[in-house]
Each structure stands twice: as structure tokens, then as C-alpha cells.
């Protein structure tokens, strides 16, 4: 077969990524609108769409003709939309951080919380819940963020030896310090008054219930910055996942790059965990699903993982609000309960073995 007659070897896979991204974008908009129409105040899907569009675009007639009540507008725009978007930002951020962690330690079990970030955030948040914000001197989000970054810095310093951060040392330091911090959290939980335990569990399992527009700003900014960085360095990520030696030979300054990635992961995960708690599973599994769908090239995989994480967590939040209404389930329970079977089913399908699940 001659070169000219053979189709470009990547052609088949290349077209899957834009298609997947478009489908996810459409699904994401759909979930936002349906979320806006879900809750105790009656709002139809059409009304939800009108309210969202009316706030985004100027001078739409239905915003001033009295067809929508102020209560409906407030429910959708002030309560439902921020929480749905926070779920989206958290899902996107955790999926992105997970994908970066998996590449930088070259381990399929890696996830955003590997750096002890969630355990550190847990200590910060639980300290505020049990001791009070005044005693700690920080808000719950502030303390969680400080705990997350403190843990990440400690893990990084513990893993560093002779200026080199080896993946295995990083994993072991993260696991060890995470256990230590979890023990602190457990101690604070078991010794506090019973009324606090519910708040603690809600934080540890993750929740976006109390989201406001202002809370969105920090994680959204962190997501945007890390996403641009990751997209600019996607080729280096591809080289790094093959091995340190190969990446070096391909002109990647591996030590510096790994440190930059760790900082990016810690900031992004810390910013997300501080406002939404320790939502599990998204950061581990969405990157794998994205790889199965569009291959391991980070230039295609990262956008799909980011959009997939956003849609998955927004849908999970919708389920968390509705399946046991009027009671809300912590979103982390939904992500694991729905995500685990789906992932296992996907992993066992034939396609996955073509995408690297053969090891």
C-alpha cells in the first residue's frame, strides 16, 4: 500500500474529540436549564431557559412583561444557577487536576486528592466547624483552602530529595500525610457535639448546596488559569507520560515541569475543595473515561475531560437534589454510586482494551 493511498493514521481518532466536546457542551447547557427548572418553586424548563437567557442577553421582552414572577427569577438566578455552575466548575477542575496528576506521577490510580489536599481541607473545615470561625480566625472556605495548600506544600517538601520530586515518593508522602490528617479530622469529629457531625459529613462528602455567585469566582479563575497552562504544555504532558528519560530527551525540563504541575494541581484542587468539599471519584474516573473515548493525547483528552467532569458533576448535583427530595443527598455519594458502575461497565467493554486498559 502506498503512502498516498493510506489514510492518515490518526484520522479516525482525531474526529472523535471535537464531536465529543460538542456533545458534552450541548449536554451541559441542557443540564443547566433542567437544573434551573428543578426545585420547590415551580419553574418550567422553558421559563428556566428564558430566565437564564434574559440575564445573559440584554432587552429580552419576557424579562419585563410580567410573565415571570420575581420569586421564579430569584430561585433560578440566585440559587439554582450558582450551585449548578459551581458543580460544573468543581467537576471540570477535579477532572483536570486528576488528569494532570495521573500524567505527572504516571499512575492510573492518581487523583487530585493524592497530594493530601482533601485531607488538609478537611482538617481546616472541621476545625472551623468544631472550634468556631472566631477561634480559627478564618471562614470555613478560607480554612479549607489554607489546609489544602498547607498539606500540598508539606507533601511536596517531604517528597523532594536532592531537588528531585520522584513520583513514587510523592504518592507515598501524599498517602501517609493524608492518613495523618484524616486521623486529626476523625479525632475532631468524634470529640465534638453531635449537632456538628452532620455539617462535618456534608463537607467531607462534598456539597455545592450553599453556592453563591461570589463563591464561584476563585475556583473558576483557578480553572481558567490551569486550563490555559495545561493546554500550552499538552505536548510535554504526552512526553512525560512515556517516561522521565524520554521526556528529557524530548527537551522537557522534567523536574521544573513536574513542580509547575504540582503547584497547578494544588491550587486548582484547593480552590475547588474549599467551596465544595471533598467530592470524590470525579477526578479519578473522568480522565480515564476521556482517554477511553478520545485516546491519550492530552491535546484532545484534556478538553473532553474538563467538559465531561463539568457535565457529570452538574448531573450528579441534579440527582442529589431530586432522588430523595425534599432531602438532599451529599453529591459525593451520587458521584460514586452512579459513576462506579458506569466506569466498570465501560472498562470491561472491548473498546477500553484498545485504549490502554490492557495493562
Amino acid at each position, binding site marked *: 500500500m502506498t*503512502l498516498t493511498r*493510506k489514510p*492518515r*493514521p*490518526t484520522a*479516525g*481518532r482525531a474526529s472523535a474529540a471535537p464531536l465529543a466536546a460538542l456533545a458534552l457542551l450541548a449536554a451541559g447547557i441542557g443540564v443547566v436549564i433542567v437544573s434551573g427548572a428543578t426545585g420547590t418553586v415551580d419553574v418550567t424548563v422553558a421559563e428556566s431557559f428564558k430566565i437564564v437567557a434574559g440575564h445573559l442577553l440584554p432587552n429580552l421582552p419576557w424579562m419585563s412583561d410580567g410573565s415571570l414572577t420575581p420569586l421564579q427569577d430569584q430561585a433560578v438566578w440566585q440559587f439554582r444557577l450558582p450551585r449548578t455552575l459551581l458543580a460544573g466548575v468543581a467537576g471540570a477542575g477535579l477532572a483536570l487536576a486528576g488528569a494532570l496528576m495521573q500524567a505527572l506521577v*504516571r499512575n*492510573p490510580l492518581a487523583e487530585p486528592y493524592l497530594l493530601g489536599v482533601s485531607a488538609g481541607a478537611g482538617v481546616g473545615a472541621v476545625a472551623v466547624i468544631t472550634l468556631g470561625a472566631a477561634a480559627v480566625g478564618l471562614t470555613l472556605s478560607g480554612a479549607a483552602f489554607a489546609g489544602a495548600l498547607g498539606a500540598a506544600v508539606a507533601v511536596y517538601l517531604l517528597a523532594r530529595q536532592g531537588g528531585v520530586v520522584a513520583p513514587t515518593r510523592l504518592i507515598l508522602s501524599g498517602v501517609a500525610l493524608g492518613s495523618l490528617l484524616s486521623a486529626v479530622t476523625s479525632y475532631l469529629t468524634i470529640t465534638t457535639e453531635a449537632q456538628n457531625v452532620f455539617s462535618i459529613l456534608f463537607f467531607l462528602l462534598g456539597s455545592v448546596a450553599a453556592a453563591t455567585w461570589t463563591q464561584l469566582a476563585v475556583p473558576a479563575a483557578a480553572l481558567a488559569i490551569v486550563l490555559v497552562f495545561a*493546554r*500550552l504544555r499538552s*505536548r*510535554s504532558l*504526552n*512526553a512525560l*507520560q*512515556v*517516561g522521565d*528519560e*524520554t521526556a*528529557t*530527551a*524530548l*527537551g*522537557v*525540563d522534567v523536574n521544573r515541569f513536574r513542580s509547575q504541575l504540582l503547584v497547578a494541581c494544588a491550587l486548582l484542587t484547593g480552590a475547588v475543595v474549599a467551596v465544595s468539599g471533598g467530592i470524590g471519584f470525579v477526578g479519578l474516573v473522568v480522565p480515564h473515561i476521556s*482517554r477511553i473515548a478520545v*485516546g*491519550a*493525547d492530552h*491535546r484532545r483528552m484534556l478538553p473532553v475531560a474538563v467538559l465531561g467532569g463539568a457535565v457529570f458533576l452538574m448531573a450528579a448535583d441534579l440527582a442529589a437534589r431530586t432522588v430523595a427530595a425534599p432531602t438532599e443527598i451529599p453529591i459525593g455519594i451520587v458521584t460514586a454510586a452512579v459513576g462506579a458502575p458506569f466506569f466498570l461497565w465501560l472498562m470491561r467493554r472491548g473498546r477500553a482494551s*484498545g*485504549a*490502554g486498559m*490492557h*495493562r
Partner: protein
Amino acid sequence: MRQEPMDLVVDDLVIELGGRRIVDQVSLEVEPGRRLALLGPNGSGKSTLLRGLYRLHRPASGAVRVGGDDLWRLGARAAAQRIAVVAQESAAEHDLTAFQVAMLGRVPHQRGFGADSPADLAAAEAALDRVGALDLADRPFAVLSGGEKQRVLLARAITQDCPVLVLDEPTNHLDVTFQLELMQIVADLGLTTVAALHDLNLAAEYCDAVAVLQDGRLVATGDPGTVLTGDLIAEVFAVRADRIPHPATGRPHFALSPLKTPTTERNP
């Protein structure tokens, strides 16, 4: 697109790992387009010396110059535009396809968000074709056989389009057919080449010069025909080597057998 070959100079290079001196004051020079075989028993420092050529180990003293420029002054990216590597690293637990692995060769040349240019894709495709691995392009790299992987890794180095090529025991685990094929492909590339080899005959057949390492030191360097004497091979490798002219090519060929020493001769 093909770059002009550059010369490679190793100047009094010392590499220390964990406080131990692994490469000890080695000086070498490879002229543009020439091929040098690095020989020596296991643990003689071949791989470490090669790693010094692609910036994995920073020298304790001495320097590596490529095209007249110090490797460590050039920076990681510029160095990777001059030296392509087929290393021994085998921890290939990733999900890239063979084509994507070959495309990694373009990493030192690309910047920004952009997609791969048609020229980049064509370079990887031509390289895979050159090593006889174009039909493997869409297969996951991890499921390929040892020989197929080596073809793809060589294709990646060709795709990198550098004037200098470094190979660390490239014929390990390959069947004899592909050993010869690989060495011929490398010879045809016409690049300045440094290859660590275990097979003395491949070195004598395909390389312009050999450098023999023992305990991190350079013990001999020069034309394979003059350097590789029976005495030197006996001293460095502790085997007997009878040199005969290759019946087909006339190049030096070594028939190896165990070195007879008093300890191996038991009571009659």
C-alpha cells in the same frame, strides 16, 4: 528539512551518581556523519555516559558539545533539537498509539496550542514507513512486541529530525534479522551516531569507530580493525576472541569462546 550532521565532542566528562564516579574523565570526538560504537561490559558506564549526552545526568566536570555548543548552555529544548535518543527506558505504561509515540519526536519543534502541521504528520508517517512500522500506526504502543516497539522508538528518533542520534543498546531483545535491519537503517540515516552495543560484530560491521569503556574509563578508541585486538577483548570482556575476516564482507569478525583460565580446569 533534513539537518546537516554536527560533530559531537565529549570533553573530559565526569559523571557521579550517589557519590560514586560512574564516568571518569572520558574524552571522545565524533565527526559529522560518523558512527561511534560504545563498547564495554555491563556496568562499565556506557548507559551513564550516553545519558550525559541527552541531559539526564549533569556532569560533575567536563562538557559535552554538539555543533560546538555546550549541551547545558543550549537549554533542554534546543538540545533536543540537536540530539535524538533511543533509550532503554521500558516502563511504557501509557495509552498512546504507535503513531502518537512517533509524533512525540516533533515535541521539541512545536509550540503553543496548535494542532500538528501536515509536515509534522508527514514526518512521523515517513519515519514509521522507513522502519517498516507504518502498519502498526494505530495499535496501542503497549501491546506491541519488543521488536515492534523498538521500530516505533527508532521512528520517533527519526521524526525528531536531529543531526545527532544516540542509541542505548538498540539491538537488545531483537531477532537477528531486525538487528541487521536496524543497524542498516541507522547507517543509511547518515547522522552523527553514538550507539552503546554489546555485539562486537555489529560494532565492527556498522560503525566507523569504537570506544571501549572499562570501569567508567576509556581504555581504547579508534578504528574497529585496529582497536579490537584479541588481547584487548580478553582483558576488558574476559572472553577469548579469535579475529577472522568476515567471509562475506571482509570486515573484522570475532569468534568468541570462554577464556581458559587455571580455575576453570578441574582435576583430570
